[in-house]
């Protein structure tokens, strides 16, 4: 079982921006995914796809942090690279 910290960033309303009042965070247990999907999600850390959209604008990014034996590891990837279950693990809120 691995619990990842998930944060949704950006979008039209700039979630998680330096001065933003909008935040979207959550936790996700990767063992809830089917094995193939869990492996694919882990593979994001091996070769993270770009955080920025190749085209377009106002998309969300996801910052994902996991704990490893050597410490925590964080990546930031575009919304299109994130499994829907991981994407929906966050809750939008006003801070």
């Amino acid at each position, binding site marked *: 079982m691995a619990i990842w910290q998930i944060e949704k960033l950006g979008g*039209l309303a700039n979630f998680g921006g*330096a001065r933003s*009042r909008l935040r979207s965070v959550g936790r996700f*247990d990767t063992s809830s*995914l089917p094995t193939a*999907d869990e492996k694919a999600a882990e593979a994001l850390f091996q070769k993270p796809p770009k955080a920025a959209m190749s085209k*377009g*604008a106002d998309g969300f990014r996801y910052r994902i942090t996991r704990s490893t034996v050597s410490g925590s590891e964080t990546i930031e990837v575009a919304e299109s*690279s994130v499994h*829907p279950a991981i994407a929906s693990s966050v809750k939008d809120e006003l801070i």
Partner: protein
Amino acid sequence: MTTRKASTATTKHPSSPAGATIESVRGPLALGARHLHHDHNNVGTCSCFIVPKKVLERFANDKKLSVQQRQYFADAAKLEDEWRKTRAQSAKLVKETRAMLPTGMTAAAIATAAPPTLLVFDCQHGTALPGVPIPNPGTSSDPSAKQAFKETKGVVDFYQQVFGRNSLDNAGLTLISSIHFSVNYNNAGWNGNQMSYGDGDGSIFIDFTKSNDVIGHELTHGITQYTAGFAYKNQAGGLNESMSDVFGSMYRQWSANQTVSTADWLIGKDIVGPGAAAQGYKCLRDMSNPAANHCLAPQPTKFSQYQNGMDPHDASGFPNFAFYKAAKAIGGKSWEKTGKIWYQALTGFPPSPNMKMSVFANRTRTLAGSLFPADPSIKSAVDAAWKAVGL
């Protein structure tokens, strides 16, 4: 209106073929999601579109779907051929016209080319794009469909009447809007090919089609893509975002025939939900006061605050403020003079993906002088506006 609210599955998802993921959202597309999604990175869904015609045709013949659902897919398959033909014909007409006619007449030829086709699709709370086509969206019983169509047409009319531009590519590009994207989705976007609009969570935000400046904002990303091509990072990203706020706000003001003094300069005022409003928030951003506390996402106001890697929605603060200051100093209606300068600065030059803000600022200064040579106060106003934000 009956709203089909999709349900989301519990955390356990069914297994899927390698490289594909099933959306756990009910609706006609749930069956199609297995096939409609393709996964470049082998971990999740892809937001690429358009759905290939052969996939649409497969669903049109899928007896597991209702007659109406099969008809939707059949219509979408037929429609794809038609809009691709229309777009190709428009592009060919423009190319041939440019080759045959003097430059001055080319603009007239482009302006008289067929206006764009406007299509609206319903994602039915899934994330497959573009979704199910909505016939006659302008008269739909779905307020979101009606609003998306009406304001997209409005933006098209704005760019045509004010700037002589025929759609995003100036060649009648068909415009596609997808509504009811995902569940409680607090966002709208442009993915390089089309717009998508979420319904909001009902507390922080409401339906993203409700704010006409948001629709103008998203469409302007398309114009930037086809013209200056500002990359979505660093200073160019801030300019990219600023162009969308500037022309989105300008469109809103044009729709209401407001002057620079009667406009409120707020971005996203009409999508603020009751939960956010109860805490005193009025908008996403405020071009007249980017750091204001009533903004959900206040912005920096001086270029000295810029940092590489800043989110484009932060970095747009300084150019937004500069446009506001210039427009207010010049007076009248924002699209008449200040808007003309900014439009020419955006569209009148070869693509500059890595544009620096100082270069763009100087470009507007020069254009203010060349577009309005009889009134030096306009160039002075533009110059002062940029200096006020440190550029």
